[in-house]
């Protein structure tokens, strides 16, 4: 396994080892995730960022075995999920939950909210109706919904923010240990986004959750994450403590992402022409370092050799031949 940064003091709850996920696309192989290793400590939030198509959602789904990886291992609390199947995997999944981007699309439009949130309890075989009702009421109250008001209503009667609260309630009702949040606030307005981010933080404390928080918005990820992992075209570029990665990014791609964020302050003149070009097709990734075609520091070595993840002096891990932290 890859040496992990010193900043992760607790034993990992989740560890992903040399994970590769490939899809067949029109007779070719698309490598959505290539040889990625990372771990998430118990009680920690790991933010996973990158542009669309970088493989961050695929990685999240591969952790849950919703998409079986082509190679590599996923270890959860000492159990190898990649080796499990059938009933054993189904039982294990109670401890891992997922929250999606589009809260309205993730709820069955024809079922009342009370039934939607109670469904996982029925699946795990809690037959006592009163017990189910008590637990649904508890979790709905925890996410800031009034159980009496929402119980019999249908998803379309609610706004996007409220539907996301329902999705969070459904994810939490089995009291999972790990929750994978895949762009949970991208579809929400600014004012509602802040409510949901605060709620996720509160739920994390209350239920002692470990979060894998996937998003493309760096400011959003920074607000909730203890550590940050940056992906580009299926590979991990950089991973490290949040303040470290934002304060002195080691990978040129991380720096580019940070420079591109539009800041709500007119006194800062937007940097121009920093972000050259767009990611190449993942069906035909560049040789060596996949970022080299857009990188201002790229040279012949970058085209030849795939950079491996190695520690920097400041405590993050970086996969770059010429990291910014080395002048």
């Amino acid at each position, binding site marked *: 396994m890859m040496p992990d940064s010193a900043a992760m003091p607790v034993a990992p709850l989740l560890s992903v080892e040399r994970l590769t996920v490939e899809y067949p696309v029109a007779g070719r192989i698309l490598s959505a995730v290539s040889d990625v290793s990372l771990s998430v400590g118990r009680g920690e939030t790991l933010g996973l960022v990158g542009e669309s198509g970088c493989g961050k959602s695929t990685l999240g789904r591969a952790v849950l075995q919703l998409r079986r990886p082509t190679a590599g291992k996923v270890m959860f609390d000492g159990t190898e999920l990649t080796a499990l199947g059938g009933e054993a995997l189904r039982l294990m999944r109670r401890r891992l939950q997922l929250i999606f981007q589009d809260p309205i699309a993730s709820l069955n439009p024809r079922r009342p909210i009370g039934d939607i949130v109670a469904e996982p309890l029925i699946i795990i075989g809690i037959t006592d109706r009163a017990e189910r009702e008590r637990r649904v009421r508890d979790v709905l109250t925890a996410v800031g919904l009034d159980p009496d008001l929402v119980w019999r209503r249908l998803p379309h009667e609610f706004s996007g923010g409220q539907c996301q609260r329902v999705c969070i309630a459904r994810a939490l009702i089995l009291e999972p240990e790990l929750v994978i949040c895949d762009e949970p606030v991208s579809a929400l*307005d600014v004012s509602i*986004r802040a409510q949901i981010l605060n709620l996720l933080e509160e739920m994390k404390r209350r239920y002692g959750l470990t979060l894998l928080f996937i998003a493309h918005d760096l400011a959003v990820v920074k607000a909730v994450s203890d550590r940050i992992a940056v992906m580009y075209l299926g590979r991990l570029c950089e991973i490290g403590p949040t303040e470290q990665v934002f304060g002195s990014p080691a990978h040129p791609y991380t720096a580019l992402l940070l420079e591109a964020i539009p800041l709500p302050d007119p006194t800062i003149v*937007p940097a121009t022409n920093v972000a050259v070009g767009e990611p190449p097709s993942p069906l035909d990734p560049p040789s060596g370092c996949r970022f080299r075609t857009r990188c201002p520091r790229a040279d012949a070595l970058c085209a030849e050799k795939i950079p491996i993840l190695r520690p920097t002096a400041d405590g993050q891990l970086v996969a770059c031949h010429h990291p910014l932290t080395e002048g």
Partner: protein
Amino acid sequence: MTSPLLSLEAVSVELPTPRGMLRAVDKVDLNLMPGRTLGIVGESGCGKTMLSRAILQLLPKRAQLSGRVTFDGRDLATLSAEVLRRLRGPELAVVFQDPMTSLNPVLTIGTQLVETLQAHLGMGGATAIRRSVELLAAVGIPAPEQRLRQYPHQLSGGMRQRVAIAIALSCEPKLLVADEPTTALDVTVQAQILDLLAREQKRRHMSMILITHDLGVVAGRTDEVAVMYAGRVVERAPTSRLFGHMRMPYTEALLAAIPKLESPPHTPLPAIAGRPPDPTRPLPGCSFAPRCRYADEQCRQAKPPLVDPDRCGGLYACWHPLAPQAAAMGI
């Protein structure tokens, strides 16, 4: 002093819904001078897109428009469909959020560009093709000759948006309306598209309206900003004044709710409680009052007008505006 290129006077847009009339835009007044950029900021449902449709005269058929939209001295509502058609392109152009739906999927990029140039500018085939290549190069598309033969689905989202911008700019419009032009794009591509729009706006001395939900997008790239809430403009000021001396509590709350890069992780966000009012059930007072921490009885009973009592170029609609000093300290 020059006269405004675009002026809106008491523009309202109403849409019939099963729940009653929905007032999407509520008596909006705006002026835009030639060569200036106006940002319109607001959350979904605040009426910013309906307002842009009113300017472009592209409202849904059922929508009822009242008030007056004057463009370059002409009242747009009085123009015939044919006159409007000729106006769009050389005078008024638009870039929408989703380039996949604004481009025709069964025509090549070249056909769509050449067609526009021929229809509006009466160019001959060879000239139009030459001009199309120049336009694609100007918006930063590599190998423009080959791109002309491609279809929209063969291009990335960012490239498609560049093509949509090239088409919008092809007839040298006086006003470009960009409605969430970068919302569907990745952050690095967003920065490039915003730079491109800013560069072309300056170079052509074109007026531009940039509609977005992101205060970050308007901050560095507009001359003036109008903040909308529940169909109304609630604050309007030159961009630096708006960010430095905001007076309307909604603007302050909206800015505060954005996670800040400089804040350490796990900093609780000052979220705005509740959500916007139901647009089919207008409130008698200030629409933001139910969510506003400064609201009192007056706010719930009477709608504050959009005014500039300090005569300093910043308008706001609020009975209890933030003190200028406190607002200045808030940044």
